[in-house]
């Protein structure tokens, strides 16, 4: 095989964290090559390096036989590499046409609006996006359309290496993507397909490189491995039915802990359900189906346009997170970087922030007391006490997540709202989190509402699972019915069918 792309010993560090360690593999010309890995495996860093946004600390790359060392995005584009980013890079206040044609915008000094608009229209129509007007502001597009525009933009540069980072993440149907890829396929075009959706990879790719914790585990031919082997390489994760046996012995009660009653909001309509004491209630959904807003309403971080929330059977007005915390509700948000940790502060401070009155008196904080009180909670979440003194930035994603959980525990909250807590977290920490969750509800007092994008882990740990689709709860899955396939069918809007092409892992 003639490799068009060769990576040799790529290493990238950010301060004390190593994102990539000696990554080496080859990509055959004209092929579609998958990069598989969980969040935190190093995929994004790899993309950024290949796109010229970062430079590796150690290691080399070669493209088409010559040394490839882009110093900017422009460099990578000029060399024939084009990227569709996972965190979409469209400018919300510019039009679709402007976004598609950035940065050159039709060349020359002055922008020719009409020419640009026409050029954009041609581009959109070529790839089946006639319904999008070139003059529309990107901010008004639904997420799926934004994803499509991002991909079309990358394709429009006619690259020889196309990088697609989780291209199907926001697409409810992947047909469009399959169609596009089939159309542009040629011997001159190589595609790097970053994803964790095995079915898509089997449909589209010939070879795959599996990353875990920043290292290459192996590069394989897709046809010669089965799913179980891939899972094992990715780090195993929660296999279906993990800990299923322990379910029945817990103290699940009938007493309602938190009730959502007829909640309406920007992205939800008439959401009603009850979380019971002693229960681990799972939530399954695709991106943007209203689950985020529901969580935030229950956490006091957002207001519903109508509907009520009851805690312990009494109606409450959750005006703010502080009020929710007073009612015993603790929220662990989706992105710990933006709504979780306090960068620049010690891990100890990160844990105690919610319980400052407990580690001091009269507003004064006592150092030794703060430390000793926190040790207990650190042990509870299996966080090495040594880390308490360090800056939280120095910790891995998994340990940061543990610290945030310790914060909620230390606060003494009864009810936990966990939004994708195991994202970007290593396997060991995931296991710790599951154990923690089970212990938390074991006495029948605590309760957990848990959203995860990993359907397998939901089936393994939860009592019940609510399925969200288009802003409403469309299914409630328990016991025998809680298989990954059933969940998939529900969250994609199919009640009984589980279409092959939609299977996600």
């Amino acid at each position, binding site marked *: 095989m003639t490799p068009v792309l060769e990576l040799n010993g790529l290493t990238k560090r950010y301060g004390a964290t190593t994102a990539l360690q000696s990554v080496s593999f080859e990509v055959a010309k004209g092929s579609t090559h998958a990069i598989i890995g969980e969040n935190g495996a190093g995929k994004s860093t790899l993309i950024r390096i290949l*796109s010229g*946004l970062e430079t590796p600390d150690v290691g080399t790359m070669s493209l088409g036989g010559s040394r490839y060392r882009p110093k*900017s*995005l*422009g460099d990578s*584009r000029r060399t024939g590499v084009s*990227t569709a*980013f996972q*965190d*979409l*890079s*469209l*400018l*919300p*206040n*510019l039009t679709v046409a*402007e*976004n598609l044609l*950035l*940065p*050159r*915008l039709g060349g020359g*000094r*002055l*922008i020719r609006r009409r020419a640009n608009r026409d050029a954009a229209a041609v581009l959109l129509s070529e790839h089946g996006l006639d319904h999008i007007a070139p003059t529309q*502001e990107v*901010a*008004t*597009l*639904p*997420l799926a359309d934004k994803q499509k525009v991002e991909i079309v933009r990358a394709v429009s540069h006619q690259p020889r290496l196309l990088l697609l980072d989780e291209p199907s993440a926001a697409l409810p149907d992947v047909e469009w993507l399959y169609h596009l890829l089939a159309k542009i396929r040629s011997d001159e075009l190589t595609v790097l397909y970053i994803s964790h959706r095995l079915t898509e990879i089997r449909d589209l790719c010939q070879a795959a490189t599996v990353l875990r914790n920043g290292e290459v585990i192996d590069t394989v031919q897709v046809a010669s491995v089965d799913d179980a082997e891939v899972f094992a390489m990715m780090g195993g994760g929660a296999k279906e039915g993990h800990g299923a046996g322990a379910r029945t012995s817990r103290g699940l009660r009938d007493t309602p802990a938190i009730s959502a009653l007829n909640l309406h*909001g*920007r*992205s*939800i309509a008439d959401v009603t359900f009850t979380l019971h004491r002693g229960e681990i209630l799972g939530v399954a959904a695709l*991106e*943007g*189906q*209203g*689950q*985020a*807003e*529901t*969580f*935030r*309403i229950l956490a006091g*971080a*957002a207001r519903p346009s109508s509907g009520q929330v009851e805690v312990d059977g009494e109606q409450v007005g959750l005006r703010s997170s502080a009020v929710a915390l007073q009612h015993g509700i603790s929220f662990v948000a989706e992105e710990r970087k933006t709504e979780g940790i306090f960068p620049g502060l010690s891990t100890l401070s990160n844990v105690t922030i919610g319980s400052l009155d407990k580690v001091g008196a009269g507003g004064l904080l006592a150092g030794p007391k703060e430390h000793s009180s926190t040790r207990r909670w650190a042990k509870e979440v299996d966080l090495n006490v040594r880390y308490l003194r360090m800056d939280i930035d120095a910790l891995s994603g998994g340990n940061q997540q543990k610290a945030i959980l310790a914060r909620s525990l230390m606060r003494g909250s009864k009810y936990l709202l966990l939004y994708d807590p195991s994202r970007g977290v290593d396997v060991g920490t995931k296991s710790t989190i599951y154990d923690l969750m089970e212990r938390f509800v074991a006495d029948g007092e605590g309760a957990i509402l848990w959203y995860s994008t990993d359907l397998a882990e939901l089936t393994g740990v939860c009592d019940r699972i609510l399925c969200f689709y*288009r*802003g409403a709860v469309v299914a409630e899955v328990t016991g025998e019915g809680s298989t990954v396939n059933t969940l998939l069918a529900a969250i994609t809007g199919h009640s009984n069918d589980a279409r092959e092409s939609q299977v996600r892992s």
Partner: protein
Amino acid sequence: MKALRSAATNGSVLAGLVLAVMYVVYMYSSVDVLTIENATDLFNNAAPLVVAATGLTLVIVSGGYDLSIGGVVVIANVILATQSGSTTQSGLLAIAVALAAGLLVGAINGFLVAYLGVQSIAATLGTFIMCTGIALVIMPSPGGSVPDFISPGLNSTVGGVVPVAFLVVLACVLGWLILRRCRFGVHIYALGSDERSAVQSGIRRANVKFRVFVGAGFLYAAAGVMLTAQTASGDPNGSALFMVLVFAAVAIGGTRFGGGRGSAIGSILGAGVLAVLQKMLFALGVSTFYTGIVQGAVLILAVLLGQVSLGLAQRSRVSESTQLIHGTEPAGPQAAQTGGQS
């Protein structure tokens, strides 16, 4: 209906309305307002503020702050006051030197912010102090003189009808409109609204930021030239009030201080509001002792007005879209600062 709504939420339009209202009040409060003399006088007063506000708008839209305005203005002022001799030629040369100085300071700011990654507040604070120092070196005490060509030359009219200052303001307006249609203009707005996406779209962050500061420096120097035309002398101590008024003009004009939104047209109208305000207060007999209070109040009210219009605009945009949105709340009050630094 939609056009009306978008007009109502456009900061520039609001500023224009305010200006119109104020001018009407002003007309009632004193006679002889609608003469060429009076108009020239008004434009002369407003010109320095207009030009400086245009420069500051560039920086703010790109997501930065600039505290060096006063420094560049005072350097331009003292250069003219000491170097411009007595002939038109020497005057022109001095103006060229002053503008070059503005470019240089802008380049230093740009280098610090764009290439060294220093926060724009910190960097421009330092260059501001350096500039005031240089100004004192050039001219230790107030005085100096400028040739007639500059003063009252730049404060008079072309052909007895069109004030030179008006042409300067017009140049700023046209210049901005052209910029908006340029690639550079789009890049500035992109960087200011979402830097990460802009970089991932291929916009060269450092290059654009650098040029923004250089352009702003040039404009501040030009403002200094127009200011010298007013005072006909040099004062190395400068005016702290001027810098505040420049920020006020930009705020009144509806430019968002986090970047990505706004327009120099609004800032220019805002500068006009402040100029008329000053005249109005004087004509109304308000003691100069209290102008400070009024200006401060106007500044805050202007920003509030800007907030309201931004808020309305955002709400109308959201209701237009039909998407199922992630249920995330917009970022808190720190948004202005977080998105806005350098």
